[in-house]
């Protein structure tokens, strides 16, 4: 019998969502890369939260603050006890990003609909083209961000110097330094290519199946623990380019594999690869920051 995920309750099936789409204690949230997909068809009753225009501060590079987050939740009819179910395109990549942002502000009940839009479509479930529904505004408490899920640059630098585990979830070409951006995506500006010294390369999509669902626990353990040597008890930081793909891996490590202390470095390569004086490793090996004081 396959053994379960560490926190199986955070994943729900399309069938569960279909049954609960009218449940007043449940709010279904679509978060996509392509901003028109929601309009083209969404899970009936779902609201939309955009990773960029809703969750990012439009002036400085940061997430929205706690006031804006509380106002956003209130406007979507999300109260502090609402069960929020995220789903979206691209194997729930952006859904995990929204999930992570909700955890940053301490929302208790968050779920991911396993397989996202793709699985909903494959299961032949209905799409709605209605305008985004409005729900009665709910008071939402303003809570300070939980930095237990978020890593900042200086913390990552200390983590790196201490030789603690880092996971680089970008494509192999971005890791080695051949590419400054994702293959097929626009250049998003990093002045240096490579990775944070010591980081292990595990592209995020290795955690997913063709249909957008997550791989079974046994496969994930084999990949992250046995093959790549990560440890559930070791404080671990994941990063990518802007913290989007790594929020997917963060979700996998924390909820599916039960890592006790894993954070997402959302500054990621677009910060590290542009900041002055940061250590950088090139090539396919993790490398290290240890200065070579003596010739080998």
């Amino acid at each position, binding site marked *: 019998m396959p053994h379960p995920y560490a926190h199986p309750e955070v994943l729900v099936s399309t069938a569960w969502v279909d049954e609960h789409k009218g449940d007043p204690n449940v709010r279904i949230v679509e978060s996509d*890369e392509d901003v028109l997909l929601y309009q083209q068809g969404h899970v009936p009753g779902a609201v939309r939260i955009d990773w960029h225009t809703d969750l990012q501060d439009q002036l400085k590079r940061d997430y929205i603050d706690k006031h804006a987050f509380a106002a956003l939740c209130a406007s979507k009819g999300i109260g502090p006890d609402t069960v929020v179910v995220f789903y979206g395109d691209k194997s729930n990549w952006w859904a995990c990003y929204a999930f992570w942002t909700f955890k940053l502000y301490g929302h208790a009940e968050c779920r991911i609909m396993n397989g996202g839009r793709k699985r909903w479509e494959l299961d032949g479930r209905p799409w709605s083209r209605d305008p985004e529904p409005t729900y009665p505004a709910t008071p939402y408490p303003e809570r300070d961000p939980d930095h237990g899920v978020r890593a900042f640059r200086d913390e990552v630098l200390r983590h790196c110097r201490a030789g603690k585990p880092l996971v680089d979830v970008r494509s192999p070409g971005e890791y080695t330094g051949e590419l400054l951006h994702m293959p097929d995506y626009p250049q998003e500006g990093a002045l240096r290519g490579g990775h944070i010294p010591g980081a292990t390369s595990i592209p995020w999509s290795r955690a997913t199946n063709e249909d957008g669902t997550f791989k079974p626990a046994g496969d994930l353990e084999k990949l992250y623990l046995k093959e790549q040597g990560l440890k559930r008890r070791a404080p671990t930081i994941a990063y990518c380019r802007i913290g989007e793909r790594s929020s997917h891996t963060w979700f996998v490590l924390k909820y599916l594999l039960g890592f006790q202390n894993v954070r997402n470095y959302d500054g990621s390569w677009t910060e590290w690869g542009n900041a002055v004086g940061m250590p950088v490793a090139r090539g396919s090996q993790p490398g290290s920051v240890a200065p070579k004081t003596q010739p080998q």
Partner: protein
Amino acid sequence: MNDARPPIERLEAVAAEFAELEPRERLELLLEFAEKLPPLPAELKDEADRAAHRIAECQTPVFLWVDVVDGRVHLAAEVAPEAPTVKGFVSILIDLFSGAPVEQALALDSNVVSRLGLLEALGMMRMRGLQAMQFYIRNRLRAQNANR
């Protein structure tokens, strides 16, 4: 496409259409454009060098055929259905440039995404990918115009 107006005038007309709308409604209009992107002509479907028409800068698969025939612009495109934003924008670019004399097409040098007021609704990160397609068409036209 038998729009006799130069691309700059066509852009003004479509920009006026977008300007009347709220940012969220602009997305509805963009979706309408996505839905009327003409299907790829059959003769291009089997083209052996299909990979050469793929836009490398773009996220989901986008294939663009940019040709100058008798001094006029010919465009065709195929975009994956899971990328309606890209599809809508390509559809607008085809409307803007198809059939126009190449010199007139090259004279359009404003940023179409921001001219249509889509920046606010799409955000900066998405705008770059769309802009890349406008640049791609422009570069192909310039190269072919130079070879004439």
